[in-house]
């Protein structure tokens, strides 16, 4: 064999030997993240808001972590069965992990699929405790569970009264009658007596999340003559309720949500205008002073020039963090295999984050402990941080301007 032929043979053999490693490196180069969100149906608007958080994640994570993320988006249509089907389809199509779905019912269904198929699933927003109580090994959640939300949200009410000098004695509690609302209601019923708050609940009223008319419900709440309204709602019903409260001239001290969507959403402001002001939501929120928040905001403004991050703070923040968690695990695992990713996820410890709270670190059940809430009050038709003082953008106002003592 001549030398040239020998060199060619060596090169060819080398290519054959090294090719599998190239394939492995090619496989590891990009993480396929299946994003499941309700982009149509009752929760369509909120799902679309969450999607903005997913959409900006690849650009931010490429710059900060040096990882390539490919999103595979699917619409759960605010339907549990559809969520399950779409999750399975995403896995069939090659998703290395799943993120989503903003809804406790859908999250429970997807968690089952993820566990059965051995694919990591990172819940962005869903508060029902049972999602991470099933002993699942592939399900992770970076969002407070309902009892935590309730505890944080109710504790902030005490802080709010202290900061404003208000002293309401009674509250009526209204909540949406779905998985989320009922979980919150149970949590509040259990936690309220332990927190030594200065008010008592005089009535609890549940309502259908799809109800077009809440006149009867508001009339019933008004008849209790409570000082303020404690509300766990979704977006559309929050709008209907706020209008009805105004129409029925129910001049309460204010509306406080101890941790539910609706009153800080963009559509709430767009639909209600000035009526949106004064409403308070004690919810997890981004830290406006965090460098990661600023980085996310820069990309958000580029991708959404006519929008503002603060109208999507919770939705974008937690959805972005879910993809961040996936990207961080991928970087450490250096593999897209489910087992490697899951193992890396269990060891997650992200200190630099966007949302107010401790580091993103999963306990044995796959749950992050230490996510905190902020008191967000609508002022000037914008949701602004009023408490904690360290992150505050405005001073809280309570009671609001409509209040008339009777």
């Amino acid at each position, binding site marked *: 064999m001549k030398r040239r032929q020998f060199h060619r043979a060596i090169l060819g053999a080398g290519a054959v030997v090294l090719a599998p490693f190239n394939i492995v490196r090619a496989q590891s180069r990009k993480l396929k993240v299946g994003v499941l969100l309700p982009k149509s149906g009752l929760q369509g608007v909120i799902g679309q808001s969450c999607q903005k958080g997913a959409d900006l994640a690849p650009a931010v994570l490429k710059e900060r972590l040096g990882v390539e993320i490919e999103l595979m988006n699917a619409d759960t249509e605010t339907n549990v069965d559809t969520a399950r089907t779409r999750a399975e389809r995403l896995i069939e199509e090659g998703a290395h992990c799943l993120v989503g779905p903003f809804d406790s019912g859908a999250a429970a269904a997807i968690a089952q699929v993820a566990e059965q198929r051995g694919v990591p699933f990172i819940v962005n927003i869903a508060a029902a405790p049972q999602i991470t109580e099933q002993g699942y090994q592939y399900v992770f959640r970076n969002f407070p569970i309902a009892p935590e939300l309730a505890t944080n949200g109710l504790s902030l009410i005490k802080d709010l009264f202290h900061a404003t000098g208000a002293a309401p004695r009674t509250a009526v509690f209204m909540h949406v009658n779905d998985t989320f609302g009922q979980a919150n209601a149970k949590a509040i019923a259990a936690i309220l007596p332990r927190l030594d708050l200065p008010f008592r609940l005089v009535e609890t009223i549940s309502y259908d999340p799809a109800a077009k008319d809440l006149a009867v*419900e508001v*009339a*019933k709440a008004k008849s209790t003559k409570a000082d303020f309204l404690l509300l766990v709602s979704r977006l559309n019903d929050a709008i209907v309720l706020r209008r009805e409260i105004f129409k029925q001239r129910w001049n309460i001290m204010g509306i406080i949500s101890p941790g539910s969507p609706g009153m800080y959403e963009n559509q709430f402001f767009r639909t209600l205008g000035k009526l949106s002001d004064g409403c308070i939501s004690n919810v997890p929120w981004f830290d406006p002073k965090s460098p990661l928040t600023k980085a996310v905001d820069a990309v958000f403004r580029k991708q959404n020039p006519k929008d503002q991050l603060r109208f999507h703070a919770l939705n974008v923040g937690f959805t972005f963090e879910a993809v961040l968690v996936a990207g961080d695990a991928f970087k450490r695992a250096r593999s897209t295999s489910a087992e490697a990713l899951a193992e890396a996820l269990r060891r997650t410890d992200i200190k630099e984050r966007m949302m107010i709270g401790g580091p993103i670190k999963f306990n044995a059940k796959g749950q992050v402990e230490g996510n905190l809430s902020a008191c967000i009050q609508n002022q000037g038709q914008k949701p602004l941080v009023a408490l904690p003082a360290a992150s505050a953008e405005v001073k809280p106002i309570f009671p609001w301007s409509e209040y008339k003592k009777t």
Partner: protein
Amino acid sequence: MPFDFIGLANVVCSGLLTGAVYGLLALGLSVIFGVARVVNFAHGEITALAMYAAAILFASLGVDPFVAVAPLAAGFFIFGYLLHGAVIHRFVDRPEHAQFILLLAIAIVITNGLLIAFGPDARAVSLDYLLESVEVGPLLIDRGKLYAAAAALSAAAALFLFFRFTATGTAIRACADNLQGARIVGLDVKHLYALAFGLGAASASVAGCMLAVLAELTPGSGPAYTLLAFVIVIVGGLGSMTGALIGGALIGVAEALAGFYAAPSAKSMFSFALLIVVLLFRPRGLLGGKP
């Protein structure tokens, strides 16, 4: 807690006003069945289509839905007339399950058409006066509901007068009472059936305009309104126009009272409980004719 008379009075009033709009919705269904012998399973979807028409006219041209009622009613009358003439008339003598499938298909086409055209997001008609309330003694009456109820009752009254005092209305009633006799005397039954269907669609469109100011619109609203209309018609009496209005008021008040005194999240349960009671003890409905 002391008995809240004023709260009760306000709730009953609200139920009656909403019930008037529901009654008009059911009236259209009753007219279509009573005359054309078609059970319109697409009635709620036609109503939803009218809601969107009113909302789009408001959003694009600033037309108040109360002003849009007349042109939309005319438009939906023509739509209903043509739909019956072109499609539904062919199924009048076919088995009932064929009619059901046809109208269900029409309902699905309308719903998905709305979804494609307008997307899934809820819409609302926002007018300043819709946030106002009118004080009548201790009662606080929602201005939007008051106007909607007045418009609905006016439309119902116009329909009554048409059937009672016009030649065409009399001819339509003749078809409903005695089809063979109507044919024998030379009435154009196909045309009259189509007129009745058009009037039913027009009623649904007026109800739709009213509902557009009372509730948010979503493409999937149709089935709930179809079901509501059926409940009212069955309670009031299939084929009875007065029964439809009374049924609407009963359902509106029943839901309001159930919500106020029992569980608001189970309001619909009481409407269906009322339906079961009526079916058990008076299957033809409160004012329905004997089978």
